[in-house]
């Protein structure tokens, strides 16, 4: 997994609330058995007409946002299906950070497994960043994970909260499975204990 430390990039504004994972990557693209290559179908049904033409109005089709690395989104981003194809598609497109007032649980977790930083900020902060993002490619937003801050192009800075363990893993690009396997003896002990306590499980 790629580390996330700091990022300065173009932010695409997506003020719609409840953007669900079916919108982020529609089911016809879930049939892959790989993680890569989903970027071209990110937001597919909002981004292309049924015959595959780009819809010019859609934010990521606009020249200013084609290289966006950040999305500033409406409330409850990533709700719906647990598909990790959603963060895979975002990452494959080049998105490394999503900023919103709230995220759905599973999507939020999935981001961290893929080197994407989801940032939760209060409504006023998101509104400020949304306005900033609307200014286009010259309005770069800076996200600093170490300091836990987001800085708008006008220099206004917002601090965000993040779980210390998740931050540590993301800063260092750590693989969860490797970390957990270091606790194999604790898992062995748990299994031995429950084999007598709850033998049916």
């Amino acid at each position: 997994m790629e580390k996330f430390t700091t990022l300065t990039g173009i932010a695409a504004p997506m003020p719609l609330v409840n953007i669900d994972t079916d919108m982020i990557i529609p089911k016809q693209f879930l049939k892959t058995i790989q993680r890569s290559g989903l970027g071209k179908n990110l937001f597919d049904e909002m981004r292309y007409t049924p015959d595959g033409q780009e819809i010019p109005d859609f934010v990521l089709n606009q020249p200013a946002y084609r290289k966006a690395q950040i999305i500033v989104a409406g409330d409850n981003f990533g709700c719906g299906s647990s598909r990790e194809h959603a963060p895979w598609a975002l990452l494959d497109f080049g998105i490394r950070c999503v900023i919103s007032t709230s995220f759905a649980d599973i999507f939020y977790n999935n981001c961290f497994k893929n080197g994407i930083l989801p940032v939760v900020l209060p409504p006023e902060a998101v509104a400020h960043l949304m306005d900033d993002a609307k200014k286009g490619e010259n309005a770069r937003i800076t996200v600093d994970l170490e300091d836990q801050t987001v800085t708008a192009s006008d220099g206004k800075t917002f601090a965000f909260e993040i779980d210390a363990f998740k931050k540590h893993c993301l800063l260092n690009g750590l693989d969860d499975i490797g970390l957990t396997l270091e606790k194999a003896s604790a898992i062995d002990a748990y299994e031995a204990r429950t084999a007598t306590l709850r033998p049916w499980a």
Partner: protein
Amino acid sequence: MAPRTLYDKIWDDHVVHQAEDGTCLLYIDRHLVHEVTSPQAFEGLRMTGRKVRAPEKTIAVPDHNVPTTLDRANAATMTEDSRIQVAALDKNAKDFGINYYPVSDVRQGIVHIVGPEQGWTLPGMTVVCGDSHTATHGAFGALAHGIGTSEVEHVLATQTLIQRKGKNMKVEITGSLRPGVTAKDITLSVIGATGTAGGTGYVIEYCGQAIRELSMEGRMTVCNMAIEGGARAGLIAPDEKTFAYCMGRPHAPKGAKWEAALAYWKTLYTDEGAHFDKVVTIRGEDIAPVVTWGTSPEDVLPITDVVPAPESFSGGKVDAAKRSLDYMGLQPGQKLTDIAIDTVFIGSCTNGRIEDLRAAAAILKGKKIKVKRAMVVPGSGLVRAQAEEEGLAQIFIDAGFEWRLAGCSMCLAMNPDQLSPGERCAATSNRNFEGRQGRGGRTHLMSPAMAAAAAITGHLTDVRELMGEMV
């Protein structure tokens, strides 16, 4: 010990290790796997030379992609990429030695219907699956939630998950439901009241007389949609109905182990005085048969109501509602019962169990459909077999429904069962998102009885009016 909630108790019994910052390693008792969210996880194991730690606790079944037409044994019914995904699951199940129900097995079906049916899901367990509707299993008093593919790989390799504990939320449904009102109406009404993010960060315990009075099937319907309310999981404390459902299932404990299990299961309830961070109370008598009008499960109203005006909402919801109405092709003020329906879909892990088929068949008996097409997709091969034995299948067929084989089908339209643009569907599934049932398709969520009512009138219908006719 301080009084604990049901969630607290199950959590405490599964902590393998707790770090200083509160991050826990949680043991997973049952891991359910399907073909869409697992290939990359198994690939990860291969690349790192890791094994499945507890194959005997891991169960796989293909459900999302599989065709539900009677000729599905013919490989040509599947698209190339679907075939590859199902073949990958076949191979992964075999290579890693996990319990498997292939398409050819009569027990095959939607993973969340197969788990309880086969007795894999039991009270007090932790259950995960790479699927958000894993919440279904909470009906047994099991802590069950969806995970992403990286976590699927983590559970395969370690039989644990790295988790932080969620908060406790109580949803109490007091009193009894009125006639014509079902578990689906409860769960949709709760989401209507709390919103799709109302449960974010919480585990919901559903309780109250109306929940107690539900069958296990109804309880599964309620918990299934906890995720649509944003909650990580839904829970219902196990009781005699739960134990009776579990007894004798193929993978339920037997003999002395059953007795030991039962004694433990009886300790699984929220202690008097335990703390909930959030409480929502709804009177069962106040719940009406409901339908959704928009493209979010929170867009729910009693069938007697009218399509709302976007201006009646606030904040970002105003634009979202405008977009929904445009997508759904509806006008504010239009009576819900005036909305004409093209297609009816009865099935999914929300409402694809035997009781759901009984409820729909009771409305359909001796009637003909007025919609263009209607299909019943049983949740498992065993539900299908039972419905045939009870004569329900014939009622559906006589009414003009297609009688399908088991799978997810038009709940998410990954297989050939899809809506075409503008086609309007009365569906018993759980998501009305844009494009969920096919690009441009318009979904109204409701109970099986309400879907059956729409099938025979050709428009959204208050099932209570038809029930009046029946008595």
